[in-house]
């Protein structure tokens, strides 16, 4: 993997004494690894459900937060600040999710003079609300979907705006995310009920019923630009990621670069993202999301004011370490590279491996991982928070790991990912590993004919609903394998079943002879 050696030799003007990692699972481990590589001491936290989690086992210092529910542990900003003070941490890395986009928490950290590794709370507020972000996009001269830039005051306003911009339209919660408080409306007569449900859903999910309206872009691609800004006024973009493969508005596969973005368009979108970040006083890592229609028109969607789950694909194609750069920016260092130094090389694809049961409507499948065989070899990276024997708790997000393949071309990366998926076995719980094989083998995906509705259409395709026809060969082998496994089980041959038991058997025989 290419790596800019300048990044490693820079000196730190204000190195952190210690970083508190306010997250769990694979991202806590990802941040811990960056700290260790940089020689910065760190402490992790855990809830009662996570005492044996990998991020705790890989720490030199770990502190209990509270009971399993996130509201009593990972979302307790007050406890996190107490721990930070007690352990002498002068910075907090929030990861993604939990408190990472909570401007109030960032502000409390600022007041406590504990550095929040992310943007200033003011920038989070300016970009965190979707309506305020749309206003900022207008100011930065960035194209956005036609529609309102403030919350809708009444149903009548929604009706007027909808007829002005034309159906179909989308109603969206200003505080929204993850597809909640979102309604597509294709006919005027459906607008009233959609407006009411979007409002009440937004109220319940986000504590705010602010809803705005925008034109629905049909079959868009989801394109996002990674930006990095230091605290000295420099801001660069690191190319795009394409995250069009989504199931119910949740990203499933991400890749960099996008197969359809040409250099001109990349520069155009990238520069627009930088303008937006600069206008909001943004610092640290952030992502500006866009929709791209089939005529290469792009529309601003929203800003994620944090590190993204899918940051590894950008790391692989740029050769940069985004978490290390986040920490260095937060320490007050200037960006070690300029825009012209950013080079994209090769292609990276990420699969989000979830504990969910594809045969049971993708319902979450927590439980004990009885056996785990992880992939390796050239160009394969796994950012994982799991190990064999660990029980995946039922209290949090079902993401187990991120499998990332990197290769010179998109086609090579797909082949490499399929190879890595074949090496990956997770037993005891059900996972979506099989889904990725299906997507990566799909001619439409291979030809990059994807949009945000692609996966839902693929899954709805009854034609493919039946399990794949297995060759006789495989069924025969499974029969033999089952017989071998069962005969060992029923004859309880410990010598064969457990490699270590030769010693036990010897001891037992020893005992019998006495």
């Amino acid at each position, binding site marked *: 993997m290419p790596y800019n050696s300048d990044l490693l030799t820079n000196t730190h003007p204000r190195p952190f004494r210690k970083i508190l990692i306010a997250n769990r699972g694979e991202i806590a481990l990802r941040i811990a690894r960056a700290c260790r590589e940089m020689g910065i001491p760190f402490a992790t936290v855990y809830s009662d459900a996570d005492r044996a989690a990998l991020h705790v086992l890989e720490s030199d210092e770990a502190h209990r937060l509270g009971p399993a529910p996130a509201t009593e542990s990972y979302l307790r900003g007050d406890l996190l600040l107490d721990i930070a003070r007690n352990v002498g941490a002068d910075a907090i890395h929030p990861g993604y999710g939990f408190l990472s986009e909570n401007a109030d928490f960032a502000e409390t950290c600022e007041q406590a003079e504990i550095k929040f590794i992310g943007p200033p709370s003011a920038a989070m507020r300016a970009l965190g609300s979707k309506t305020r972000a749309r206003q900022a996009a207008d100011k930065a001269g960035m194209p956005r979907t036609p529609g309102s830039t403030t919350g809708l005051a009444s149903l009548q306003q929604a009706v007027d705006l909808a007829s002005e911009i034309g159906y179909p339209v989308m109603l969206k919660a200003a505080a929204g995310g993850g597809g909640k408080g979102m309604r597509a409306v294709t006919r005027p007569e459906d607008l009233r009920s959609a407006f009411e449900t979007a409002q009440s859903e937004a109220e319940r999910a986000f504590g705010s019923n602010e809803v705005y309206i925008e034109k629905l872009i049909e079959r868009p691609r989801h394109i996002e630009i990674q930006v990095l800004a230091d605290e000295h006024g420099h801001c660069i973009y690191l190319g795009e990621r394409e995250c069009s493969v989504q199931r119910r508005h949740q990203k499933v596969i991400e890749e960099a670069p996008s197969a359809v973005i040409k250099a001109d368009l990349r520069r155009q979108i990238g520069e627009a993202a930088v303008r937006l970040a600069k206008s909001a006083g943004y610092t640290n890592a952030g992502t500006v999301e866009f929709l791209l229609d089939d005529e290469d028109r792009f529309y601003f969607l929203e800003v994620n004011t944090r590190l993204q789950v899918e940051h590894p694909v950008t790391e692989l194609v740029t050769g940069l370490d985004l978490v290390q750069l986040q920490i260095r920016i937060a320490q007050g260092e200037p960006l070690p590279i300029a825009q012209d130094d950013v080079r994209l090389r090769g292609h990276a694809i990420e699969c989000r491996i979830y*504990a969910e*049961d594809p045969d*049971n*409507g993708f*319902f*979450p*499948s*927590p*439980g004990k991982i*009885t*056996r785990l*065989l992880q992939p390796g070899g050239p160009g394969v990276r796994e950012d994982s928070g799991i190990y064999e024997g660990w029980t995946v708790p*039922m*209290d*949090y*997000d*079902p993401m187990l790991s991120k499998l990332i393949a990197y290769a010179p071309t998109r086609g090579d990366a797909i082949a490499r990912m399929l190879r890595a*998926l*074949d*090496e*990956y*076995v997770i*037993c*005891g719980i*059900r996972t979506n*590993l*099989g889904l990725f*094989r299906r997507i990566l083998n799909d001619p439409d995906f291979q030809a990059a004919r994807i949009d945000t509705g692609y996966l839902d259409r693929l899954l709805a395709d009854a034609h493919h609903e039946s399990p794949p026809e*297995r060759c006789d060969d*495989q*069924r*025969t*082998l*499974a*029969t*033999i*394998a*089952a*017989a*071998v*496994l*069962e*005969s*060992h089980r*029923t*004859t309880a*041959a410990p010598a*064969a*079943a*457990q*490699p270590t038991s030769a010693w036990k058997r010897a001891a037992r025989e020893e005992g019998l002879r006495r």
Partner: protein
Amino acid sequence: MKLYIEIAGKVRAVDYTPGESTIMLDDEVMKVHAQWLRPGVLSLIVDGRAWRVVLDENANEPAVYIGSERIVYGVDDPRSLKARRARAAGTDGPRTIKASMPGRVVRILAEKDQQVEAHQGVVVIEAMKMQNELKAPKSGRVTELRVAPGDTVAAGDVLAVIE
């Protein structure tokens, strides 16, 4: 020892003794070498072709991974296999609602002794912030409710009985 293995509705007789170098599949003799790598993980060489086999002893059903393919199997003698299938398919007698996944019970949608229709929701369990409504397998009376809201359940636990 002789075993009957069922995969996708097809039952085959397999004769194998641990440590032996041949296996009898129906009437065919094949060369086999089984090497345990660790509990549940097996390297199998059958007539010169090498496979990695991993046992997935999930709560509800035995299964093996052949490479990356998960294949569910049944093991028994054929008569009791048939009998078991007949029992499972029948609509007579009490039927249970089992937890398909570990989770926490959030709601009970029916009362004890209540009459429910087939496919009517009876218990809602939640895991990883998603809720799953478990439905009655047939019409009948709820004779037993073994869980209450707040209970933690394991995969395969019986939650209710419909008669």
